[in-house]
């Protein structure tokens, strides 16, 4: 892979997705979205529910096909799911019939990694997410937050270069959510800035987006309506959210979500502002 292809990790080109509702009416869930995401970027997708952010994420994952347009990852057009794109789902996706460690090993096993090697990798990531002590437990014995840790360990163990997270912490309590955000950031940053994975993170929590993202994409009714860079230094703290730049971005986000009055009328971003 050359560096030019690498820097353009995810290319989404004029992607559309229409659904047929039960009453026969066609609904455009994603409407002509184009955006380029660089390698190592942590991108949050924000928008009111039903804005198409999850649909877009599922298309990048390969679980849904675009009605029109194309998506390329690391320079290759995708068709179907692939292990270079790991997905963490909103609902519990940990397989209840496998012990915790077997869950973390699952992707490696699918690729035929030798048993001893995959166990070592799985143990490493279970330790990293703080679950070294429950590797032999059944998932039913774990709390919701612990299950999310297992899901995160699983995608990291699988060595995906792109991580797709669909409101992963939406159903968790405040404390657990913040713990898991730092677990995620630590893993993302484990090899230093040069080795960072590319992350697409869907959330409806404005503060979550501000404390995690390098860049925030805002969606509304299937359109990409804003593309905001978050330049605050890492690691970020509660105080970071009070920096003038951050407060300005927060106001913009709240306006897009309809919680604050807009300063100017809504404009649709074409072809990705950052490309």
């Amino acid at each position, binding site marked *: 892979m050359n560096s030019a292809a690498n820097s353009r990790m995810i290319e989404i080109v004029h992607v559309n997705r229409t659904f047929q509702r039960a009453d026969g009416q066609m609904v455009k869930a994603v409407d002509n979205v184009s955006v380029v995401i660089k390698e190592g970027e942590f991108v949050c997708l924000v928008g009111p529910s039903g804005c198409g952010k999850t649909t877009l994420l599922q298309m990048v994952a390969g679980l849904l096909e675009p009605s029109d347009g194309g998506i390329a990852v690391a320079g290759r057009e995708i068709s179907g*799911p692939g*292990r270079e794109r*790991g997905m963490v789902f909103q609902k519990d996706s940990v397989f209840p019939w496998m012990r915790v460690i077997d869950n973390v090993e699952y992707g490696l096993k699918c690729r035929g990694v030798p048993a001893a090697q995959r166990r070592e990798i799985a143990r490493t990531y279970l330790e990293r997410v703080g679950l070294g002590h429950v590797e032999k437990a059944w998932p*039913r014995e774990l709390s919701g937050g612990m299950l999310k840790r297992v899901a995160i360990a699983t995608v990291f163990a699988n060595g995906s270069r792109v991580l797709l997270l669909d409101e992963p912490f939406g159903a968790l309590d405040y404390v657990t959510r913040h713990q898991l955000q730092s677990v995620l950031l630590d893993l993302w940053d484990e090899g230093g800035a040069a080795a960072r994975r590319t992350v697409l993170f869907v959330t409806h929590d404005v503060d979550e987006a501000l404390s995690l993202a390098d860049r925030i994409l805002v969606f509304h009714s299937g359109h990409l309506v804003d593309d905001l860079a978050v330049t605050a230094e890492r690691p970020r703290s509660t105080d970071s959210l009070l920096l003038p730049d951050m407060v300005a971005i927060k106001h913009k986000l709240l306006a897009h979500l309809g919680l604050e009055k807009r300063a100017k009328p809504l404009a649709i971003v074409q072809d990705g502002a950052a490309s």
Partner: protein
Amino acid sequence: MITSHVHRDRWISVAVFLTLAAIWQVLSMVYTAEAQPGEPMIAGWQVLFTNTFLAMSDYWQGGFGVPAVADGAARSYPAAFLAVASHSIDTIGRLAIGLAVGGAAGLLFGLAVSWSRWTRRLFDWPLQFLRTLPLLAMVPLFQLWFGTYFLGEVLFVAYGIGVIVFAGTVNAVRNVPQIYIDNARSLGASRWTLCRTIVLPAIFPAMRSTILLSLGAGWSAVLGAEYLGAQSGLGYIIVYAQQFAYLDRMFFIALLFIVYTSISYWAIGRLSARWLAWAPPSQRR
């Protein structure tokens, strides 16, 4: 507290069982009518475990140094025991092989229906059609096609079980949560791996009731097949006894059936509960 509840429940079950046995004994003493001289309509326990059991010698073909009654030997307990054992083995063997063949075929076709659009077109409609054929009406056909000793009975049992397992599998696969399939695919599972590591374990809790249901159908099917023309097995003894109005022998075999079916339900229940160690307790009962 929970263990003491279980303990108490068990004692209640034993008490009910003993009461039923006692009622039967009382009935046999009150209602003494006979189907024919020496053949009580209701045989008490003292008859069932002596005369009736001894009479089972009649169904012993001879061997193991114990001669057959048909060859002029007197009835004996060894001959009775061997007769009951050999006919039981015939029946249970037919059931077990039919269960294995029918269960495997039903599962395979059930999975095939959800494998792809093409396999669905290929298997779904014909198998749904096959399902609607009344089971017992098929007995004479199976016997004419496949004979009355082994193949005919086994295939008939397999057919009876296969259609139930097929329907259960199709239904269970339909209910596998999509998120597990999506997750496995995005982790890199091939379609075959998906079927083996996700679909099969995911359908198992639902399949447990299907397996128990098909076990019941299997016992009926093997008995039905033996009623209608088999030359051995417990069903054959019942038919033979009915022709001579040996009510006590019929009742004895019926009791034997209750014992066997109870053991088979218990064994499969225990085994599947072990395989479901991962599931919440509510799904293991």
